[in-house]
């Protein structure tokens, strides 16, 4: 009987239910914890998802060092560095946006910071698109029909590098950066409604989980790029064919 008595006492959520409290949680704290934990578990999953590509990169990089050097040399590390800066800055604005909600700053501030983040995101994607187009024009896209084995660029390839090995790098380049870009596009899609709600003043020091969790996602995307940049762009920076 004792158990039942206790049970009844615990029946209701301690706090007066907040508008954003889902029915199956006892209180906002529990809900927020669950959300954060969920996002982290999701990120763990993302790491393994990219892990497959990093594995392929590692194996073939070990196998064809010269090929990767030479091919990487065709990427413009200056553009890459610029994009890195852009992404890091967007991470900063996002971190500040989270801060703004936590500190209960005016919706204007929150929205401004998130818009800045989106803007930087678009900048990054624009630059990426430009790079892709450049590669396409140079016939470096390793897709049958698009790849142009007779392009004069390829005449710089050191003799001991075969076209197949050379394409391998670009295939990995497009797979990794492409997947990364896809994550950024998804990110932009997710943040749009969050911005709307922020504008409606929904986020407060006690409830701001969506902003926080999106922040985690955005920073994760940033981290992926932090690795892609040296692995793909800087690899052959000092390499003179």
């Amino acid at each position, binding site marked *: *009987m*004792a*158990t*039942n008595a*206790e*049970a*009844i006492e*615990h*029946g209701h959520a301690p706090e007066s239910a907040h508008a954003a409290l*889902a*029915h*199956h*949680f*006892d209180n906002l704290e*529990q809900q927020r*914890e*669950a959300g954060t*934990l*969920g996002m982290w*578990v*999701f990120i*763990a*999953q*993302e790491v*393994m*998802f*990219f*892990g*497959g*590509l990093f*594995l*392929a990169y590692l*194996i*073939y990089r070990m*196998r*064809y060092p010269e*090929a990767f050097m030479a091919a990487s040399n065709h990427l413009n590390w200056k553009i890459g560095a610029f994009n890195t800066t852009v992404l890091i800055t967007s991470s900063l604005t996002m971190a500040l946006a989270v801060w703004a909600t936590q500190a209960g700053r005016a919706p204007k501030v929150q929205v401004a910071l998130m818009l800045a983040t989106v803007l930087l995101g678009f900048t990054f994607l624009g630059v990426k698109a430009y790079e892709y187009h450049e590669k396409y024009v140079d016939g470096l896209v*390793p*897709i*049958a029909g698009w790849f142009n084995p007779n392009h004069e660029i390829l005449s710089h390839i050191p003799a001991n590098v*075969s076209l*197949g*090995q050379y*394409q*391998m790098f670009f*295939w*990995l380049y497009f*797979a990794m950066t492409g997947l990364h870009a896809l994550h950024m596009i998804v990110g932009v899609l997710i943040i749009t409604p969050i911005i709307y709600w922020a504008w409606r003043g929904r986020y407060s020091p006690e409830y701001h989980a969506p902003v926080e969790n999106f922040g985690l996602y955005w920073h994760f995307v940033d981290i992926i790029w932090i690795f892609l940049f040296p692995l793909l762009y800087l690899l052959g920076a000092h390499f003179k064919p």
Partner: protein
Amino acid sequence: MSNEANAGTLAHEWRSRFPTVNYLNADYGWKSWLLTKDHKRIALLYLASITFFFMIGGAYAAAIRLELLTPQGDLMQSATYNKVFTHHGIMMVFFFLIPSIPATLGNFLVPMMIGAKDLAFPRINLLSWYIYMLGGVITFAALLFGGVDTGWTFYVPYSTNFSNTYVVLAGLGIFVNGFSSILTGLNFIVTTHTMRAPGMTWFRLPLFIWSMYATSLIFILGTPVIAITVLLVAVERLAHVGIFDPALGGDPVLFQHMFWFYSHPAVYIMILPAMGVISELIATHARKPIFGYSFVAFSSLAIAIFGFLVWGHHLFVSSQSVYAGMIFSLISFVVAIPSAVKVFNWTATLYKASISYDAPMLYAFAFIGLFTIGGLTGVMLAALGFDVHVTDTYFVVAHFHYIMVGGAMMGYLGGLHNWWPKMTGRMYPEGWARFAALVVFVGFNLTFFPQFLLGYMGMPRRYHVYPTDQPLWQVLHVMSTGGASILGIGLLIPGIYFIWSMRYGRFAPANPWPATGLEWRTPSPPPTENFPVTPVVTWEAYEFRPVEEMAVIGPGTPDEPIGGQHPLNPGGDGGIAVNREP
């Protein structure tokens, strides 16, 4: 039994007078099902769809067994046969075995066992079902359009450059389906961490929760890798890029590494939940706390972790380096130990227990026996010198069917029987259930034991025709096919009486067996929010309490009063007078 029957009929009478509101009759209409966020309803959605895919896979299995009745390929073309075994594999592995227990029993039980109102992310839970269906439909479409003939393993370069079947479509389906697993795993992990009822400490959790947690770890950390791998295969096929193509500097063996990095742990995705179920069944039907609770609990985690370190034992003859082979072989032997520990603990639990012969317990017995054989043959296969001879033969086929069917399948069936009263509020017909269990057991062994012998005699797997100069081979194949038909019948019987019982079965009391888990401390079927009030756990796992403390928690509903002390239903929750020692 008599007591149950008694309690059951009383409950029946009572409930027919006072119909109750529960998650099944809370609201009606297809919308209330297709848009539900209730984990229990989603579990039933999964149950239905998984059964559907299982029947497809089973049909293909039947076709395989029929073809192999005779050495000549006289039933179907070899191209057809290749598609048939591929479809059997894909359907059974990706759309039945992997989601079977987690998505049905897991979805239904995880929140109830830990005393939560629902999973942490109900919407995501529903989403994962839709993703599963989408993946299933895509793959099924691939099958209908003409099918795939690569084997469920999709080995390159055959799948990328040679097969001219619907590889990309089927791959896409598996890719999509992967995310349903990931979301389910994510939901379980978060729920277990954040939603436990007051007093439900980690070491009071039912062992089923531990194994679901371990399974979720594999979902989260393994599935993404198969997703990216299948994606690469599809891209290579479409765009003719050379990630795995030797002609372009790629390495086909890299595919095998990436594929098995997931697909070996996937085996544990299939067996770990079954192990969890078996722990529950034994504790319930032997009325004993599981012997060495913490060892069984941690062995689940150990299996999940070590399971990620052994994938290379699928590559012993695939030109993997000999040294890598040795490392993988060594770890494979280590991963066998936690499984052994579980088996020993289950057996020890039965010592001086009070063992009932209810259908769930029969399945538990079958599981322990068959899993022991399956596991030990797995140990045999991990021995390098031996594996060289039997890998890619029927020995392997027999081995993993002892794990998949003899293990996962038995656990699934046992679990369904055990929680059927809770899920539907009706009892299944015990007599038929015991009979079916027996048929399944006999049929299963007759089907797969001969395949061990075939394997050692050198019959390779995925063979459409086999040599006629080996008379014994046909004999064994005929035995196997005979067993398969018995197994098929044995699996049909539960299908029939489960459906029958949903309408005509006796009403089930809240705690028919009786069992100690929280899920039994609420009416059957449970209300939408699972418990009348948030339960508070003050007892240890599998601790049998006096009747009134094992009854429904909370203010009495008309037919399930507090402590089950109802005039018409005295101690009706299978109430048992507790006398400590027989």
